[in-house]
């Protein structure tokens, strides 16, 4: 295709917290500076910047990308903001990949930031206006409603129980105990999940990731530059993204078609024919417990309705055959929307470099996939990485 090979060569992230003192610009600066420090580059080595951030309604700041510009080191540089809802965190590095793979730039700083805590009484209210303004908003829907309905459709179609799904929270919150940025890491049981407050049945409090503030950044470089920067580049070998129809009631919510489309694109680019065999480690998007399972299926890491069995059998534990969300995921590390997706990319980057510390999965993985999801349950963004 005439595309250049692109590597991730550096990464940085802030802690994820419920409410941060730092402004969005300050969080963005911290993550960007750390990413450059990690690969011993300075801002003058960066040709272009991409900024990923979620709904402007969280911050109450119009043109959030421009607002973050200074913190992201993008002053008087070519810069673009991208936004596909919750899918932004994995779309942002895809966006950065375009810039470098195309040959236009040799290096790109990719920054994803979210500060949800400014929105009151609760950032969930900012989502009202994603629904159709005439046929849905007058019913005052919330995202938790439609996710509860999607979770029920998934359970109903494949005969999955809440116990099966609750294990995701147990696994991920425990994994997050080893993540230095984690907001809500804890050791819990399936009973804790089932006994936690019901928000919208079948969704309980412990089925949901928290609202968070935080920022994450990575540095991308073209092959000839990457090899000068580090002896452990992690290659972006496949990218894919797709949006399904916004008529969400027209889709069968039991299966994420949008993700299969995106995953097939990424796998084809990476030359992956049998994802369940060739992918060693996965970070599917897990803002809700059932979504990790839903997305494992959409990523074709198992058959439809089969993800709960892999989970129950321990296959997706850190020491299993297919570690899933070894970072602790959004359920354990936290969910500053755009930043959370990029945190997953950073986790695969560290795991493939063998630098994930206590979180390191055994067996020297060589191929990993990170994925995010968003908008009206309709967007999938996928990156395949190799060391």
């Amino acid at each position, binding site marked *: 295709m005439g595309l250049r090979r692109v590597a991730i060569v*550096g*990464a*940085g*992230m*802030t*802690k*994820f*917290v*419920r*409410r*941060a*003192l*730092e402004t969005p610009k300050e969080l963005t600066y*911290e*993550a960007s500076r*750390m990413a450059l*420090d990690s690969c011993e580059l300075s801002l003058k080595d960066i040709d272009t910047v991409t900024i990923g951030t979620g709904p402007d309604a969280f911050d*109450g700041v119009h043109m959030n990308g421009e607002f973050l510009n200074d913190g992201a080191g993008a002053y008087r540089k070519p810069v673009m903001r991208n936004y596909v809802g919750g899918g932004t965190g994995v779309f942002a590095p895809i966006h950065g990949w375009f810039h470098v793979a195309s040959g236009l730039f040799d290096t790109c700083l990719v920054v994803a930031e979210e500060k949800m805590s400014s929105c009151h*009484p*609760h950032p*969930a*209210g900012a989502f009202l206006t994603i*629904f*159709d303004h*005439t*046929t849905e908003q*007058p*019913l*005052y*829907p*919330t995202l*938790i*409603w*439609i996710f*509860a*309905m999607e979770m*029920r*459709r998934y359970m109903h179609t494949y005969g999955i129980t809440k116990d099966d799904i609750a294990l995701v929270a147990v696994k991920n919150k425990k994994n997050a105990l080893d*993540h*230095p*940025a984690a907001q809500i890491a804890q050791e819990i049981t399936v009973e804790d999940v089932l006994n936690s*407050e*019901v*928000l*919208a*049945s*079948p969704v309980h409090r412990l089925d949901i990731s928290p609202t968070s*503030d*935080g920022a994450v950044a990575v540095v991308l470089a073209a092959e000839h530059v990457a090899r000068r920067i580090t002896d452990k580049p992690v290659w972006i070998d496949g990218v894919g993204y797709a949006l399904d129809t916004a*008529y969400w*009631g*027209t*889709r*069968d*919510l039991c299966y994420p078609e949008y993700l299969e489309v995106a995953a097939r694109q990424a796998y084809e680019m990476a030359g992956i024919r049998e994802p369940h065999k060739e992918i060693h480690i996965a970070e599917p998007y897990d803002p809700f417990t059932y979504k990790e399972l839903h997305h494992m299926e959409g990523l074709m890491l198992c058959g439809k309705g089969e993800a709960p069995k892999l989970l129950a059998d321990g296959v997706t534990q850190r020491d299993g055959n297919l570690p899933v969300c070894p970072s602790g995921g959004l359920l354990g590390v936290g969910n500053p929307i755009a930043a959370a997706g990029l945190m997953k990319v*950073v986790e695969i980057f*560290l795991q493939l470099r063998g*630098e*994930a*510390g206590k979180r390191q999965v055994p067996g020297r993985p060589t191929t990993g996939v990170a994925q995010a999801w968003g908008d009206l349950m309709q967007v999938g963004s996928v990156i395949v990485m190799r060391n």
Partner: protein
Amino acid sequence: MEITARLIEKTATPLSHKDFVQGKVFTVDCEPDLRYAWDDGVAIGRYLKELKQGRIMARRCRECDRIMLPPRMFCERCWRITDEWVQVEDTGTVNTFAISHVDWTAGRIHKGQRFYTPAVIEIDGASAGMGILHLLDEVAPEKIFVGMRVKAVWRPEAERVGAITDIKYFKPV
């Protein structure tokens, strides 16, 4: 040494409620009072006019042969103009549902207040899988099930304004 452990030590200072009560952190509040008036458009415009008359109208695409709700002037699959209006029933089947204890701002419902019971309802006469979002009522939340047959409960004619809420809710048949 691992990258994250080395780098994230001093980033993102967590704040607690106490920090605000004690005046350690200042905030500026902003409550912009903006209102939007969204025009209903061609397809939904007709849909609302018909709802005011107590009818649910869908659009058919002859190419994929779908009868679509909510109605649309173009078919997103075939990407062409849809062909005709079709009246469908005001009955349907629950495709999925939730029993919600929270409102749209994530606020908890009051003691004694009924849970919100939103559902995706596949309307009879529209193509299979064509669900619309609406609310269920006149049924105990624990009695709701996927596959339950329901019927629209309309506002009295004089109270209808041409809105999705001209249907108050759906109830079991």
